[in-house]
């Protein structure tokens, strides 16, 4: 392939797993770490080193709040979206447990939400795991029908990390508010990619991550609504930082990095989304002509950067190995060490073969048109090669219905 010579390989198409920090972000961060910079502990009240750091933290808080149209006072720093999810769900469940012990979430949530809910089940909470529709979206009526008198919390993610679908959090929020139920949204995959207007959304708690939008790893935030006021029980105890909701020395450089990433996102989001959408559509146009290729997740309500495709009769892991010139994943990175097929694809009703055959392409700020074209060619070639190797493809070509075969499971 000729173009390969001009391009840097491997091509990074896994922006949903993590993103490189923007160079503007990295610069800001470096400036507040060493002795010549603002390295102080923002909790130090007695000297200028502490005050300066505190100022930087506040400025970053404003940037984060501005992107999502919230009040800076509603932002609590955490070590990342996993901690935000843990804090929001356990924090609200524990605080409001006298009102009831029923929680509703969805089977396609991130593990940070699902595992937290399981932990609460062990503590005596009752959790309903909703099935999404085949397009990955939640049917409002279904949600309504599982709500009970003792329901205290609903946790639904904004954008799914694997299949990229966007849930209607405005409608879900309205429903929750009308029932007096706390609504938590995991927005790790949506901030900076989808408009979020918290002043006009009935959302009580929202989780954010920096490293999904060109900020550093190890920092995130939880939005905790002030009007009406939502209460959470702290999960990490200590010096009472973050108004008691999350103790621990504030990692100033990380916070500054997140602030800068959110500031850039607010400024450049519209333009960037348009660019990414063009590339995403180009990729799908290039792939959809292949035989037995399936798009996962509703394409209308879909974040621009994500394309999740199942290549039937080809096993996902071997395909990823074959595609070593591009960095993609089969399902979420947090579960890719395991051999299970994607639980998200299983939850939207994809059969095992298709769930095992999926690849998530995620496009971002630095993706180019050449990279997409190269990817299309590479995928076509490698899928063809692996299908030549596949007994299932052979059977399909011979007209055998795979569902009629008695498999010797092992």
């Amino acid at each position, binding site marked *: 392939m000729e173009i390969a010579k001009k391009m840097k390989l491997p091509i990074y198409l896994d922006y949903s797993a993590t993103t490189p920090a923007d160079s503007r972000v990295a610069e800001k961060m470096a400036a507040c770490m060493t002795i010549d910079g603002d390295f102080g502990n923002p909790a130090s009240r007695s000297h200028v080193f502490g005050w300066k750091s505190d100022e930087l933290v506040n400025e970053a808080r404003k940037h984060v709040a501005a992107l999502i149209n919230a009040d800076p006072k509603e932002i609590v720093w955490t070590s990342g979206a996993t901690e935000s999810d843990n804090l929001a769900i356990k924090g609200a469940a524990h605080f409001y447990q006298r009102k009831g012990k029923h929680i509703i979430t969805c089977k396609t949530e991130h593990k940070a939400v699902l595992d937290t809910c399981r932990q609460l089940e062990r503590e005596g909470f009752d959790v309903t795991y909703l099935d999404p529709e085949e397009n990955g979206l939640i049917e409002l009526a279904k949600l309504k029908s599982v709500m009970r008198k003792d329901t205290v919390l609903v946790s639904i993610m904004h954008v799914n990390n694997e299949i990229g679908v966007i849930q209607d959090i405005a409608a879900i929020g309205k429903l929750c508010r009308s029932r007096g139920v706390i609504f938590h949204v995991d927005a790790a995959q949506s901030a900076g990619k989808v408009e979020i207007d918290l002043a006009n959304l009935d959302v009580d708690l929202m989780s954010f991550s920096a490293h999904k939008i060109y900020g550093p790893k190890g920092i995130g935030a939880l939005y905790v609504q002030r009007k009406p006021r939502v209460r959470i029980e702290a999960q990490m105890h200590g010096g009472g930082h973050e108004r008691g909701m999350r103790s621990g020395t504030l990692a100033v450089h990380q916070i500054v990095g997140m602030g800068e990433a959110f500031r850039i996102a607010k400024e450049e989001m519209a333009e960037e989304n348009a660019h990414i959408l063009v590339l995403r559509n180009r990729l799908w146009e290039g792939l959809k002509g292949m035989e037995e290729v399936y798009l996962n997740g509703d394409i209308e309500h879909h974040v621009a950067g994500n394309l999740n495709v199942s290549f039937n009769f080809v096993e996902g892991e071997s395909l990823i190995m074959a595609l070593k010139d591009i960095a993609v994943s089969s399902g979420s990175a947090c579960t890719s060490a395991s*051999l299970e097929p994607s639980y998200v694809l299983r939850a939207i009703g994809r059969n095992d073969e298709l769930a095992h055959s999926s690849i998530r392409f995620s496009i971002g700020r630095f993706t180019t048109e050449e990279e997409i074209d190269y990817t299309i060619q590479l995928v076509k070639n490698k899928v063809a090669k692996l299908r030549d190797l596949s007994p*299932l493809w052979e059977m399909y070509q011979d007209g055998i219905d795979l569902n009629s075969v008695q*498999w010797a499971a092992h």
Partner: protein
Amino acid sequence: MAYSEKLMDHYENPRNVGSLDKKDASVGTGMVGAPACGDVMKLQIKVGDDGVIEDARFKTYGCGSAIASSSLLTEWVKGKTLEEASEIKNSQIADELALPPVKVHCSVLAEDAIKAAIDDFKSKQSAESAA
């Protein structure tokens, strides 16, 4: 997870890919695994009158380790008697390819596949001699 060079070689240049006529009396076919588990292995052997495996072919749906395991196995069984071939252990395959612990099941599947192919060949032979 880093894979061994041998594994990558078998994965990138799989040996003996293809199919033999499974209706042929001298061909034994073993198909093991299930799509639900993420791997299906089809292994075929062609056995000469002297009981020696003359040819072997495979097709595998599965991860790179499963493909490499079946490719390696087809190389190993060629020229072996049925008895010798049935004595190949999954641990030998795992050692040769330096399979990581989570991939050892791929070598188990390969061992199952050759056993199934031998059984299929033998049952065909006994059916024929009974006829």
